[in-house]
């Protein structure tokens, strides 16, 4: 074990040795070192947000044909630090009539609900928080805490807009949790485990190959779970001011954004671990640092896709968001999961390559059927719209003729 191939384990072992030399049994020392490391990880994740904010602003800026932050420090790198210092020194305005405890708890839950997911993420072959056997469900469970934060913020603010926004967002979040949980079920099925590390180890062939539909649904649902464009109904400023955080100020307001930026990245981490093989790659077992790099690069690609979508899509309406979920995503997720289960059982005796081929084929068939039905529905709707437009044109023409006559 040397420093270059696996730095985190190396430092961990070194620290354990150091603590043990103070006269502590080796196991106890290891437990203490792990405990402290576990305590430090959220801090690192929080600081990572500074980089995420800079990166995202830069990418969105480029997408919109402007340079993004470029004044403070080289390439504007110091900009988020300056912003953070500024927001730290902003007054916390306590609006009249708020329900104090939930009001103050909401931003904490919004961040804590995202940070809590990091403990089960396997960063490399040797470095993973904890490998509990319910890891995948744990992520969903912790995500529910963030939902609570939004409800708290909305109802405790004593503001109609905030309350309305919170209800909308929560309706959206819980709705998109269904296809997300169903899509998550497919990698669990393929790996026969809910442990995140086991799921990654089961992917010499990435699960996105065997379950492209589930991967797509998971990706879109996770964007909806973060509440970003095109699902950013919570920020429909023309309808509901700033959304559920209208009455927040200073760092309490900032925390909701810390939560959002971190959530987008965390979801990319989880997507990579579930569908893109996590840290898997050539040489990742021998040199865990390579696995870490692979994991990071894949995550950055997924994260970039999310930002690109955010920068280029217009916002849905609430009814569209709901119908998209319940009439399209949920049925597809149910079909994709049922098909995956059937294929896994019926083709259990075939080789890996053949089974994955059948998985792809079945996914393609489901997608084809959905597209076929979808195009029919839209065609029927299009014809109706055409008829309506025709009638409108006729009416306008008639009224014009009338006015011409008089």
């Amino acid at each position, binding site marked *: 074990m040397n420093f270059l191939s696996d730095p985190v384990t190396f430092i961990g072992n070194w620290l354990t040795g150091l603590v043990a030399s103070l006269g502590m049994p080796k196991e106890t020392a290891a437990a203490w070192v792990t405990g402290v490391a576990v305590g430090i990880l959220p801090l690192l994740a929080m600081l990572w947000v500074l980089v995420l904010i800079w990166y995202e602003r830069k990418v969105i800026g480029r997408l919109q044909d402007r340079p993004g932050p470029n004044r403070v420090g080289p390439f504007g790198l110091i900009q988020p630090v300056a912003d953070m210092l500024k927001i730290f020194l902003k007054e916390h305005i306590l609006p009249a009539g708020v329900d104090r405890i939930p009001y103050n708890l909401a931003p904490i839950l919004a961040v804590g609900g995202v940070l809590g997911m990091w403990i089960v993420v396997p960063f490399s072959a040797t470095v993973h928080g904890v490998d509990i056997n*319910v890891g995948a*469900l744990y992520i*969903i469970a*912790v995500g529910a805490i963030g939902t*609570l934060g939004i409800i708290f913020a909305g109802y405790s603010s004593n503001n109609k807009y905030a309350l309305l926004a919170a*209800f909308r967002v929560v309706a959206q979040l819980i709705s998109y949790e269904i296809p997300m949980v169903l899509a998550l079920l497919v990698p669990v099925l393929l790996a026969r485990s809910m442990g995140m590390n086991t799921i990654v180890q089961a992917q010499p062939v990435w699960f996105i190959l065997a379950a492209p539909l589930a991967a797509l649904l998971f990706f879109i649902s996770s964007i909806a779970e973060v509440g970003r464009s095109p699902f950013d109904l919570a920020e429909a400023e023309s309808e509901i001011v700033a959304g559920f955080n209208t009455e927040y100020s200073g760092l309490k307001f900032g925390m909701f954004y810390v939560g959002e930026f971190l959530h987008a990245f965390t979801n990319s981490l989880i997507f990579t671990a579930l569908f893109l093989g996590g840290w898997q790659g050539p040489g990742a077992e021998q040199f865990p640092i390579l696995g870490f790099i692979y994991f990071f690069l894949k995550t950055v690609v997924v994260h970039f896709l999310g930002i690109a979508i955010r920068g280029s899509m217009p916002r849905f309406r609430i009814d569209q968001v709901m119908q998209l979920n319940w009439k399209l995503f949920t049925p597809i997720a149910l079909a994709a999961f049922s098909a995956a289960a059937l294929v896994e059982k019926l083709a259990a005796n075939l080789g890996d390559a053949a089974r994955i081929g059948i998985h792809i084929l079945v996914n393609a068939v489901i997608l084809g059927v959905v597209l076929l039905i979808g195009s029919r529905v839209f065609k029927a709707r299009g014809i109706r719209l055409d008829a309506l437009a025709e009638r409108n044109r006729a009416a306008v023409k008639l009224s014009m003729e009338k006015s011409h006559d008089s």
Partner: protein
Amino acid sequence: MILDQVIFLITAVVVLTAAILVVSVPKMIHAALWLILALAGIAVLFVLLQAPFFAVVQVIVYIGAIAVLVIFAVMLTRKAMQDDGPQLNRYSVLAAAVSLMLFAVLTGMLLSWDGANNLPVNPAVNPDTIVNLGESLTNPQGFLLPFEVASILLLAALVGAIYIGREHRAGKEEE
């Protein structure tokens, strides 16, 4: 392990306090909030019982879904933030007496039960309890019937909810 017991005692106090507050705070929405704390405490108890799957399900289903539903339901009423007046009616003493009696009976039963004092030290089952659970859910000798009946029950709940919800919608629409 001492730490287990300390965590258990703290959690138990939190759960009981939260549960008492659920039924005693005057505002309905606050009752919903205390309920969330009580449910979270139950999840910790599941972890202490070495049932992590149920702990996670407790959080997903009870906090993530039922608590949200309760808050939605409270918001459907007009009195979400108003005091509902005194929490006790004239039968409170009688109800307390009945509750105490029930508690005494349950405690007595538990104390006279063998299992309360002789816990199985190391149950000889597959350590991966989730696999066991999954297997028994679809095993005809296991819980197949309850499993399928549960889906019918869920379906019935769905149909009933939509029926009632639709009727309500026809009456009054407001956002």
